[in-house]
């Protein structure tokens, strides 16, 4: 498929690109080709302006509303909770907890739910393709609390191996399944509805790491029947410092606080404090007010474009990229899952991922190289490092063509 055939997108890509000021930057005299959105996405003007507006026109601390500015800021901040609840189709706004990022959200669950609802001897299952964020907090819980941590295998194609999963659950001790909704290395989606049903049938809860998936497709936590769902705002075209934990209301109600301080209490004396109801119980201290309001603008932005249009655009980009990359001799794409999104990891004969990234960078093309915070998975795939190209709603098919040209030039440098 040629790039020209891809330009009839169901949305106005030229207009979308104008919304992202950074995309006009030059790198070493070349147009920036930003293929690293899976690490962190660029920000639309709507997000930048929303944050500037807070600071210029309506800023004060939140939830201490004895004056006009605080009330106004609290309203704007809390309105974002409604936006996130709508984004995920949560049953209620009280099921949305703001955190610093997806990592912190998982740590919150590991600490608070893990130490109160899980007993020593209970087991947690993760998969071989987890980001360190969905592995290390469970290792810490294992070491501190005496739960067992088990790892379900993936197939060579990079999909979850249900036979292995069944084996891990066989003794009935598994109480929590913590898996990604979309791999940040292989780009494949996991069958979350099936996984949730699988866990629930066996008396376990499910936590889904949605850091990648939430950017690319509509997420419905009720349809999935997710117990916990986490994501980061900065990958969803929002600011850094914003993350979300969705949890079913009855789970949050029963969980003790993660961090203590202001905002999370009902009453405090020197002898004892009592906790506020969720979600405030889990939001100690002054939150990222400006950034959270920016996240609200990001959610408005992507929902206005629509996830159907975004998913269709990215599906075409991914198909195009798979086509371009598979035509480069000596290049190997990792993972062959059917249901995949705009994240592609690859290795090249002779050229190490680092060398690929450096040489592409000099041509203005930004990709990531390394183990992508998923070191065990990289080991499982039998490599030490991969290069990764990832796409966003602003990515052009021509940028994927540029990647192909760049990689062919690298092949020449290393081919001799």
């Amino acid at each position, binding site marked *: 498929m040629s790039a020209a055939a891809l330009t009839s997108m169901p949305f106005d890509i030229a207009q979308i690109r104008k919304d992202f000021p950074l995309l006009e930057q030059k790198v070493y005299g070349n147009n920036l080709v930003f293929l690293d959105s899976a690490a962190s996405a660029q920000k639309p003007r709507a997000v930048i302006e929303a944050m500037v507006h807070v600071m210029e026109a309506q800023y004060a601390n939140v939830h201490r509303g004895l004056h006009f500015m605080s009330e106004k800021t609290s309203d704007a901040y809390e309105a974002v909770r409604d936006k996130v609840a709508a984004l995920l189709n949560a049953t209620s706004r009280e099921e949305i907890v703001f955190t610093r990022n997806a990592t912190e959200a998982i740590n919150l669950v590991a600490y608070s739910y893990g130490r109160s609802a899980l007993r020593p001897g209970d087991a947690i299952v993760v998969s071989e393709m987890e980001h360190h964020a969905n592995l290390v907090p469970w290792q810490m819980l294992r070491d501190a609390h005496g739960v067992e941590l088990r790892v379900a295998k993936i197939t060579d194609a990079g999909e979850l191996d249900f036979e292995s999963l069944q084996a891990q659950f066989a003794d009935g001790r598994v109480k929590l399944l913590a898996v990604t909704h979309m791999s940040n290395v292989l780009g494949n989606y996991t069958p979350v509805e099936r996984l949730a049903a699988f866990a629930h049938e066996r008396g376990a809860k499910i936590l889904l790491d949605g850091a990648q998936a939430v950017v690319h497709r509509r997420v419905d936590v009720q349809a999935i029947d997710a117990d916990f769902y986490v994501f980061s705002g900065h990958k969803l075209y929002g600011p850094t410092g914003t993350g979300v934990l969705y949890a079913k209301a009855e789970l949050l109600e029963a969980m003790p606080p993660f961090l203590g301080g202001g905002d999370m209490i009902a009453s405090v004396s020197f002898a004892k404090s009592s906790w506020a109801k969720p979600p405030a119980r889990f939001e100690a201290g002054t939150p990222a007010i400006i950034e959270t309001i920016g996240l609200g603008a990001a959610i408005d932005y992507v929902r206005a474009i629509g996830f159907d249009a975004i998913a269709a655009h990215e599906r075409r980009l991914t198909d195009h990229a798979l086509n371009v990359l598979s035509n480069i001799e000596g290049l190997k794409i990792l993972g062959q899952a059917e249901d995949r999104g705009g994240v592609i990891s690859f290795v090249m004969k002779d050229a190490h991922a680092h060398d690929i990234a450096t*040489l592409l960078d000099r041509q203005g093309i930004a990709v990531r190289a390394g183990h992508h915070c998923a070191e065990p998975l990289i080991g499982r795939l039998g490599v030490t490092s991969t290069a990764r190209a990832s796409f966003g709603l602003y990515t052009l098919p021509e940028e994927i063509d540029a990647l192909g040209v760049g990689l062919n030039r690298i092949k020449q440098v290393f081919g001799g």
Partner: protein
Amino acid sequence: MTDIAELYQSLIMDRSRKPRFAERLECFDAEAKGENPMCGDRIHLFLKRDGTQVRHDSHGCTIMTASADLMAEAVAHKTPTEYFVLRAAFEDMVNSGKPDPMLGNLNALSGVSEYRSRIRCAMLPWSALAQAVNQDEPKNG
């Protein structure tokens, strides 16, 4: 791609593809493993005191592997004190981009100074060498 040619000049490509000093020694006096946790570059360094030989087993990028091989060549038959003098000069050179006559073939890596994130690739073998030497010190008495 002229600037790319500057970084990936023929000596670097050659030493990365066909390293002269890559070997896992069975018999050695000291060893050290170096790893760059950011990217997964790994080096296993072997040190022999008699004749002060250095051998490396490198799994990583072109810059790291070539740097390891050129280092092994440069430090052969030198004393640990001389290693540290070379290391300091090498570190200055990859940061400044200014070749140093004392460094000989190692100057092929001067282009790294233009690529900030790659300086640590070039330095990894030298960090492993320092580790191996420090480990070896008590044995030296």
